[in-house]
């Protein structure tokens, strides 16, 4: 266990951001908080710059799609790690499907660049201010965001698996 406990970390975060940090939970020991897209860069840069916390290491950025949750369909999830205190925090920002803009974290960490490109590629999250927001793993002329739930695993238009080829 680290030198800072989740409670202390949460106290510091709430002291700094108050009501802007909501939905606190602790699944499997990892402190998880939610914030808004207006606050996310402030939260991340504060976590990184704070002398005691020193969350200098961005572990991961990814997203998740909840089609049923009206107005909060797309969640962007940040995992940040303080190597000094050996504690991690997970920060979520939920966006409406029609308005998937969120400021980029690539000014805080260079490593966020490709993680955000991957998230854009698969979920269509538009990271505003990103220096080079292009698709990264899929082909450039793809028109859909394949990790969204409405996108089927297999191409519904493919004909090589039609039943009549197999005498069915």
């Amino acid at each position, binding site marked *: 266990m680290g030198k800072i406990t989740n409670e202390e970390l949460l106290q510091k975060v709430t002291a700094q951001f108050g009501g802007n940090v909501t939905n606190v939970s602790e699944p*499997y020991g990892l402190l998880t908080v939610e914030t808004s897209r207006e606050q996310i860069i402030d939260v991340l840069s504060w976590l990184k710059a704070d002398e005691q916390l020193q969350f200098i290491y961005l572990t991961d950025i990814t997203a998740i799609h909840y089609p049923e949750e009206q107005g909060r369909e797309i969640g962007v999830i940040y995992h940040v790690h303080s190597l000094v205190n050996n504690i991690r925090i997970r920060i979520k920002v939920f966006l409406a499907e029609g308005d998937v803009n969120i400021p980029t974290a690539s000014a805080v960490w260079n490593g966020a660049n*490709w993680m955000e490109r991957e998230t854009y590629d698969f979920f269509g999250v538009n990271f505003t201010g990103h220096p080079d927001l292009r698709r990264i793993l899929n082909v450039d002329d793809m028109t859909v965001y394949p*990790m969204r739930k409405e996108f089927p695993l297999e191409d519904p238009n493919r004909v090589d698996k039609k039943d009549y080829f197999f005498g069915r």
Partner: protein
Amino acid sequence: MQNFPAYTDTDLQSELSTLNLGPTHPATHGVFQNVLQLDGERIVSGVSTIGYIHRAFEKIAEHRPFYQITPLTDRLNYCSAPINNMGWHMTVEKLLGIQTPKRVDYMRIIIMELSRIADHIVCNGVLGVDTGAFTGFLYMMEHREAIYEIYEEVCGSRLTTNVGRIGGFERNFNDIAFAKTRKFLETFPKALTEFQNLFNRNRIFVDRTKGVAAVTAEDALSYSWSGPILRATGVDYDVRAMNPYCSYEDFDFEVPVGTTGDVYDRFLVRNEEMWQSLRIIEQALTKIDKEDKNIFHADVPEYYLPPKEEVYNNMEALIYHFKIVMGEVKTPVGEVYHSVEGANGELGFYLVNDGGRSPYRLHFRRPSFINYQMYAPMSRGMLLSDAIINMSSLNVIAGELDA
């Protein structure tokens, strides 16, 4: 990116030429492309294009029961597939709240450290090849073969191993597996010593690697590097030591770090890690002798498939078998992030479960993907031949890069 100065017009010596390094260039050791602008032999700028073997594992995983995702993880870093398998099992076990017996942990550690050695053998061997020395690679390959033979005894396959199950192993290690591991512990140190003698103070090798692609700790952290290449810059971040999983806290080992972060330091760090892995395996073999020989999985009948002969003769076993195969076992709702120290760095699994038979969302934090993004910016101003060995020393595995 401000850390890597752009090449200005005044630096130019000749007309620019464009070089497509990849997607199938022999020096890239995998399928990825870099479009380089060259001024003579010096790289002015580069653009990395990746995704040539993207197989949509995260999407496929959303449609598969947990135990069928293990073979997908094989194909991430295929040079050390068992680490990925174990990482996945441990993630699911964390979600389900399964406590594995110590003997299972030690068995896992043996197989994970063996695969770490196998991965480092390939990386350092190939670094030798790219600097013009084929001997080391050929010489070390024999010992990777020995490791693969141990895999074969344990699980029957060599490259994409699909080893282990949720809760433990599919079968116990047999005596041959232990004998082969012991034999490996005897023969490999000699080979590794000889390998180091070939390279460590070799004038040609040192001239080619020292000071090449040196990276500061600040840059490495800012680019979220992890694994041996981060440790070569002097940051002692090793998941095994920092967030011990799988009983790593029971073991004595050191986390080797470099100072300059150049190709030579990465080479040395990987070599030293192999020594540490040998130490860990040795301790694991001693510890495993004290445990009950017949334990190779946790007692979790809801999640661990019963032996086949029981399925046909025992009502309970049949029910569990049916429930597991048909995906009718209740799983807790929740989200879990678990990371293991892969051969290339922090391999993380972010699993969101809604209680169904397959993950609601599964994200792989792939070290190769994240490590590789500094490659194009750091290549600016570098000689083409240096960029090639820089790529070998990053040990980017295409399967892990593209997922």
